[in-house]
């Protein structure tokens, strides 16, 4: 069997369909996008090359991209930490053989199945209802309301998903290791710190990677929950790119340039994070 794959003829036959699909759906649009970021255009057919001026605009407009970037970083830092910690705690609780474990796992996972737009509108109603009752204002009143709104929404949506990954990791910890630790007199905290955590390091890598890239790419939740209100102070990167591209006449090229920068940022951050956590994994 092995030999068949090694023959170039077969190799081509087996990989070609995927390769073609990949080229059509990813490589070509990416290169076109890269080219368009150096152009002024309304529709793709009418693009005119303008050099780096789009990129200059991106970095000189402090109210747009840079503000959105800072806000996104703030969301990402808090969002990644809270979702991962809470998901891990849930995973620990739901691997202890408690009654109704499967039921709870299903319940916690379910929010993840609902689309971000719908979630955004539902949470907007909920949060507005609470805020109006308690403070007498709504989500658009202060940027910090929108900020915490997004964090709460994101936690609610993603915890279940990350929890499932952590549960799989924790279940892979060999029972005899934990038993041996128990016999040696280790407390639960010691077991957690010295056995479970190192053993689930690969899950942590995956989960932090997923939540980090997720936070940076967040769009629909942001659009539905705050749409940038108040005064674009809660606009995240993806929404800012969308607004620039579609809502600002003559700024499609700038939007495209923002998207290219965005891709590079997300790529770099994800790479650095993978490097760091996988180094820990190997230790």
């Amino acid at each position, binding site marked *: 069997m092995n030999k068949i794959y090694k023959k170039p003829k077969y190799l081509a036959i087996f990989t070609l369909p995927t390769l073609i699909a990949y080229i059509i759906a990813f490589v070509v649009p990416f290169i076109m996008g890269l080219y368009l970021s150096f152009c002024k255009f*309304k529709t793709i057919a009418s693009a005119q090359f303008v050099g780096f001026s789009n990129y200059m605009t991106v970095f000189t407009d402090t109210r747009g991209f840079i503000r959105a970037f800072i806000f996104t970083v703030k969301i990402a830092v808090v969002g990644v930490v809270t979702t991962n910690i809470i998901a891990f705690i849930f995973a620990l609780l739901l691997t202890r053989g408690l009654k109704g474990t499967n039921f709870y796992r299903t319940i916690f996972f379910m929010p993840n199945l609902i689309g971000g737009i719908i979630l955004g509108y539902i949470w907007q109603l909920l949060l507005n209802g609470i805020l*109006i009752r308690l403070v007498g204002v709504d989500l658009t*009143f202060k940027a910090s309301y929108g900020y915490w709104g997004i964090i709460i929404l994101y936690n609610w949506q993603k915890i279940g998903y990350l929890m499932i990954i952590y549960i799989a990791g924790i279940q892979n910890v060999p029972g005899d290791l934990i038993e041996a630790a128990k016999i040696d007199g280790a407390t639960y905290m010691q077991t957690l710190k010295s056995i479970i955590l190192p053993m689930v390091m690969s899950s942590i890598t995956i989960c932090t990677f997923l939540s980090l890239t997720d936070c940076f790419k967040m769009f629909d939740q942001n659009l539905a929950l705050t749409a940038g209100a*108040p005064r*674009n102070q809660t606009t995240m990167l993806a929404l800012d790119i969308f607004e620039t591209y579609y809502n*600002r*006449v003559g700024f499609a090229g700038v939007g495209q340039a923002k998207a290219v920068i965005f891709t590079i940022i997300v790529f770099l951050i994800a790479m650095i994070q993978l490097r760091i956590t996988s180094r820990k994994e190997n230790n």
Partner: protein
Amino acid sequence: MKKSFISITLAAAMAATLATGAMTVSASDYTGTIRWLNYKPEVSDQMKEVAAAYTEETGINVEIETAASGTYEQTLTARMDSSDAPVIFVVDSVNMLNTWKDYISDLSGTELYSYCSDDAYTLNDGNGYIYGISYALEGWGIIVNKAITDAYFASPNKSTEYTSLDELYTFDALKAVVEDMTALKDELGIQGVFGSTSLKAGDDWRFQTHLMNQPLYWEWGGNENIDLNGKVPDFTFQYNQEYKNILDLYLNNSVTEPALVGTKTVDDSMAEFALGQCAMIQNGDWAWNTIANTDGKAVKDEDVCFIPISCGVEGEEAMGLNVGASQYMCINSQASEEDQAAAADFLAWLFSSDTGKQLVAQKLQFVTPFTTMADAEYTNPLFASENYISSLGKTAYCWAANLIPDQTWKDEMGADLLAYAQGQMEWDELVETVVDVWAEEEAITNEG
């Protein structure tokens, strides 16, 4: 005599048959689809009825796609790049025309243009190239539920001397009446005089665009001095206090508290009006469809009328509603010749055939500039009210707001108005911000 009459009739009938025959022949050759990217969400269902009626009569497929409120240009951008780009689309201003010029074919040779009563209702280059023809002459002001104001005027408890809507053409009069009505709101059975000031992002156009018409009109020196086909003029917000006058009146005498207006949509506000929860609302004649189709509508058709917006500028008692042509139909020059021809035939049919005219007047409720539509009968009571106000000799404001540089400015203005309503922003800071943003966007728009 009689004989010749018969022969003329016969000849005419024959000519008509021939003409229709010719039309059907050319029509039946066409197998494509006429795509119309509709600008007006409030008539999206009615537009589909129009499409179905045309398909039934001619067998030609018409597809209507409607862009959500406030997203027309972004939808158009996306659709123009697709292989099934719209053949008929809408341009709402000179600024938008400049962006899309390369996609617009000349309508001067079309049948539709021959129906158009005046070039003022077209977008043109001054040399006979017709980019677009308006299909909707629209007016806006403050829509009033006369039943409630009449109840107020008849009330023994009122403390103003005003007794009719005809006296409310100055801001002082309007303010006095509105504030007194607020004091008597329980007696009048309303929750507020004005419907909610809908400042939710995307629903703020009544204020960041339409209400801006007043300060822009006065700052730029009125109908004689405003060139609607020209470049974006400078803007200092000279009449910001007057704008604030009317805005504060809306906010403080409303169904909804000022701090909560960020949750309100135009639909919410229109529902309040239709259900009789408020007496007045700033909107235009296009809102009639929404009012008429509200479940549980309490306001009677004959009670719906307009009064002009006044904000305290000297001379405004001589002014009427804001009236103008907006939304010009264009035919996509990048579409195939057959598609363009089919689209032109369809538009000619829509505004001149009996079925089409019926649909335009009764369903779409467009007041059009077409001579063929002169005998159309409308059901919208706001049109009658527009005629009444101009019969009083009041001058209509032109749509100065069409010269607002772009959506970015409007969004900034809307967001700032919300912050102001919530008490998060001082008025002076708002004025300074929007004037600065105007300067930036003006440069971008005029240069492009």
